[in-house]
């Protein structure tokens, strides 16, 4: 009877790995070993998540490890492994590694549970577990007062939106008498149902920095170490999109007007994110706004309530997260200001060309992961008749090329930043970046079978 629970092995493993990393002091080699162990355990969890297959509703119908969850869980665990590998090589700025790795793994465990959540209570608690460590990672440098202030702001805003979300959930429970997604009966609930769903979504909107709720992101990211941003801006987003797909699927049939709400939020995010990113000179701010824009693209596919749209959105979060994390990791090595990347191509040609691959993937140029992701995002919105949204998406993608290519220009034709010390070689960190570059190409090349598994119709 318990044999079915093997499907949760990745989550158990990753939480166990978090404990090992937390007590990394006792390992030989201490801090660095803790990070290596974290990376190895997360990688194993990713393999198990991919190999573990799928199942129907489990644990009293509270979780459902379906195909979308399988893809998202694999992505979360793999990206966590990548991040931990980089941290093992370069370390956290001014602080030790093992607490950061442990916290990241707790967040990954919560995120993986979140992707399977089929119940409001499980969703809430998993969301908390996946965001709680993020507050610490954002303020990881204990002596950096502005950074701590940014982390505190992030914490207060995230908590506020969590409370709003709980308030909305209380309405949903009051209407349907159950917290299970499958039993949410909102038909004929009128304004109260819409309000409950809206308030619940506000929590998710804010955590994924969608447009009217994005204002915390640029400030919080700009105050945090780039390596923390690399994790916080990518991994929780995968989980968030997966659970949003589940929640929307459960309520979209009963609550009218969700398509419009999602489409408006998507449009606002794309416009605001891309236009605000244009003048930024700090790479963390730039990527924060680029993250807002990408949330907009993702919501475009979530809006029409089709399984193809949900599959496309989950595919694209991973296709977005890999290059986005890698770019922030390079920023953590070289410095977060755009001018810090000056002449990177002559100093570190491999890193510079990898950056080009990631940036081009974010713009959405074939044959990279981002192109196929965007293609199916736009396709699913188009088949739902949201033509204006798709036109806006294509136009803002062109705008986005403006600021992504500014980074490229800086790397190849910018001025060498004065007085920089040569970067110490860190083979494992370089390995992590190389894997990210290969993955960006591989996800693009392997897009067809992956998307087919996610239920996205091809052709």
């Amino acid at each position: 009877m318990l044999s079915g629970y093997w499907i949760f092995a990745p989550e158990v493993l990753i939480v166990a790995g978090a404990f090992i990393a937390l007590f990394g002091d006792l390992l030989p080699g201490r801090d660095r070993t803790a990070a290596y162990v974290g990376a190895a355990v997360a990688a194993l969890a990713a393999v198990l998540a991919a190999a573990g297959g799928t199942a129907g509703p489990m644990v009293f119908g509270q979780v459902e490890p379906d195909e979308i969850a399988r893809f998202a869980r694999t992505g979360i665990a793999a990206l966590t492994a990548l991040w931990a590998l980089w941290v093992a090589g370069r370390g956290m700025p001014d602080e030790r590694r093992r607490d950061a790795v442990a916290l990241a793994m707790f967040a990954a465990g919560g995120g993986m549970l979140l992707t399977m959540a089929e119940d409001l209570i499980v969703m809430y608690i998993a969301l908390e577990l996946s965001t709680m460590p993020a507050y610490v990672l954002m303020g990881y440098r204990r002596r950096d007062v502005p950074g701590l202030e940014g982390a505190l702001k992030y914490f207060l805003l995230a908590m506020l939106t969590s409370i709003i979300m709980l308030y909305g959930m209380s309405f949903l429970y009051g209407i349907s008498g159950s917290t299970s997604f499958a039993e949410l009966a909102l038909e004929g609930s009128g304004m109260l149902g819409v309000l409950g769903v809206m308030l619940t979504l506000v929590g998710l909107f804010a955590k994924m920095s969608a447009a009217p709720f994005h204002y915390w992101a640029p400030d919080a990211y700009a105050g945090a170490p780039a390596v923390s941003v690399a994790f916080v801006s990518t991994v929780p987003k995968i989980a968030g999109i997966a659970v949003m797909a589940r929640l929307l699927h459960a309520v979209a049939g009963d609550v009218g007007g969700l398509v419009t709400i999602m489409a408006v939020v998507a449009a606002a995010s794309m416009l605001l994110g891309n236009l605000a990113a244009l003048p930024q000179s700090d790479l963390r701010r730039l990527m924060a706004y680029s993250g807002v824009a990408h949330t907009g693209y993702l919501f475009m596919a979530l809006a029409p309530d089709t399984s193809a749209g949900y599959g496309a959105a989950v595919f694209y979060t991973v296709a977005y997260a890999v290059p986005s994390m890698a770019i922030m990791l390079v920023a953590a090595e070289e410095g977060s200001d755009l001018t810090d990347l000056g002449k990177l191509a002559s100093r570190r040609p491999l890193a510079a060309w990898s950056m080009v691959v990631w940036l081009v993937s974010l713009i959405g140029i074939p044959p990279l992961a981002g192109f196929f992701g965007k293609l199916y995002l736009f396709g699913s919105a188009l088949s739902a008749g949201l033509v204006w949204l798709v036109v806006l998406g294509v136009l803002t993608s062109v705008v986005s090329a403006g600021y992504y290519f500014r980074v490229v220009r800086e790397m190849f034709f910018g001025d060498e930043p004065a007085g920089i010390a040569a970067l110490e070689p860190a083979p494992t960190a370089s390995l992590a970046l190389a894997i990210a570059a290969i993955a960006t190409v591989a996800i693009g090349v392997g897009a067809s079978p992956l998307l087919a598994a996610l239920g996205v119709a091809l052709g």
Partner: protein
Amino acid sequence: MTETVNGIAFAILAGAAILGAVGMLTTRNVIHAAFWLLESMIAVGGLFLLLQAEYLAVVHVLVYAGAVSVLMLFVIMLTLRRREDSVRPVEVSVAGAVMALVFGGLVFAAIASYGDRVAEMPETAPDTAALGELLFSRWALPFEVASLVLLVALVAAVWWSREEKR
């Protein structure tokens, strides 16, 4: 008869809860704010009692009114260097008030339009034993995950409060 008594008790407790919240927001002294919060919490505990949720009422009073309020007073006591620091100006924001009114009106209108189609309520309120049983059977998964959330909070608190050499 019981309806009327319940109604009067509800009015008093709900009024007290709202009064505490308003008092907390409008007082200039952070220590007074902590006490207003305590008052509001106790009133909410009374509301739970009115719904025959004895366990929730007791836990609410013990944890929120007891532990959390005392914790806040301790935090204030340990972080305030001078007595004057405990007095802050009250910021009156017109935009905030308008937003609160709009939000309140929206919620009120939504609930009013929904009417009294509340879900079927059980004859008797489940007791503490039933709650415990549910918590460790049906809701075991979120219950255990909650312990991980608390652990993360603990690790975070230690991380930020400990001063040590690397």
